[in-house]
């Protein structure tokens, strides 16, 4: 069970990222809870300066722009 957090204010790209993460998880058959973090304070605390950001099990793996699909699958299956 993985916990994925998506950091972003709710912009279009943040929503797209969320969909990408869910897609990748179901494609890989990985059980993951996807949580959206929209509070600017929490986003900042996580060290994200450009949204959307992604963390997997507490570790920040991506910040700024849509993630690359191959890389995303790598983070999820690691």
């Amino acid at each position, binding site marked *: 069970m993985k916990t994925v957090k998506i950091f972003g204010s709710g912009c279009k790209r943040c929503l797209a990222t969320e969909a990408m993460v869910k897609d990748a998880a179901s494609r890989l058959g990985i059980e993951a809870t996807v949580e959206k973090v929209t509070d600017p304070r929490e986003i900042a605390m996580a060290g994200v300066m*450009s949204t959307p950001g992604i963390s997997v099990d507490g570790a920040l793996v991506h910040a*700024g722009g849509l993630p690359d699909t191959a890389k995303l699958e790598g983070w999820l299956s690691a």
Partner: protein
Amino acid sequence: MSTETHPLNPQSPNWLWYAGVALSGAVWLLLYRQLIPFSEWATALFPVERHSHTGEAIAFFLYDVPKVLLLLTLIVFVTGVLRSWFSPEKTRAILSGKREILGYPLAAALGVLTPFCSCSSVPLFIGFVSAGIPLGVTFSFLIAGPMVGPVGLGLLFGLVGWKITAIYLVFGFSIATLAGWVMGRMGLERYLQDWVRALNAGTISTLPEDRVTMVDRIKIGLDQVREILGKVWIWVVIGIAIGAFIHGYVPEAVMLRIMGGEAWWSVPAAVVVGVPMYTNAAGVIPIVEALLGKGAALGTTLAFMMSVIALSLPEMIILKQVLTLRLIAIFLAVVASGILATGYLFNALI
């Protein structure tokens, strides 16, 4: 069973990308050279006299729309590729070690080069301040980003010419640097929202750095073109429609009375009108083109353009999450003073 593999030449797909970029460049140039013949041909399709008010307005519109869209595509692509070497994280690392006095111009320069959209200005602001970057330096960065952005400069160059572009660049950059410095001197940290002040630098985590290839950078550029053109084209069309109306219908005498250099109130009026105007550099520069063409004073027009681009109400509302109203008011007042000074200076000089 054959175990033989055909090793793919890793070069070949790259070459396709480079060839594609070169070809697109050639097509771009070809199209750009057809702008005047195209607009004249298309204007002639309308049943109006070419030199009537309506004919002039239509010709302006049909010339400017493809021109601005072509210029935008090129500028956004090149900027997207160049900016792929920069990131907010790297910028923060550069700025956090610098002496304060160097920090202001450096922050303004990095504000132009660092990719960030206004939707992440809050996390970016917090990221800077919590890393110990002085508040004033952070403001220099945030002002310069929109104020002297490559889209505005590139369009200004393409539509109005290099002299005014150079003036705009020098003064926009100076305002960003000086406004940050002034706010740094004022000791405004106490006007941040409480929770921002409580943050400390201990929480910064860093991302592992990716290896980015040249093809990746090209893809980033193309992605930017899709994203930004998809968002701004409507503002471009609206801006050009307003520009076309001014070009075709507004008599020079009226323009001189409203936006000429004589009336003392024209510069502050331009700022007051400019701030609530919700558009962007791409939408306002066709208006600027038409205003200057009709004899509006340079100082007044610069003030109008700067306040539209650099001071926007939606951005202020976003920043309300981290800044108190008082700090937002100070920010507005300092930047607006710089813009007013620039406006009066050029109206006096020219």
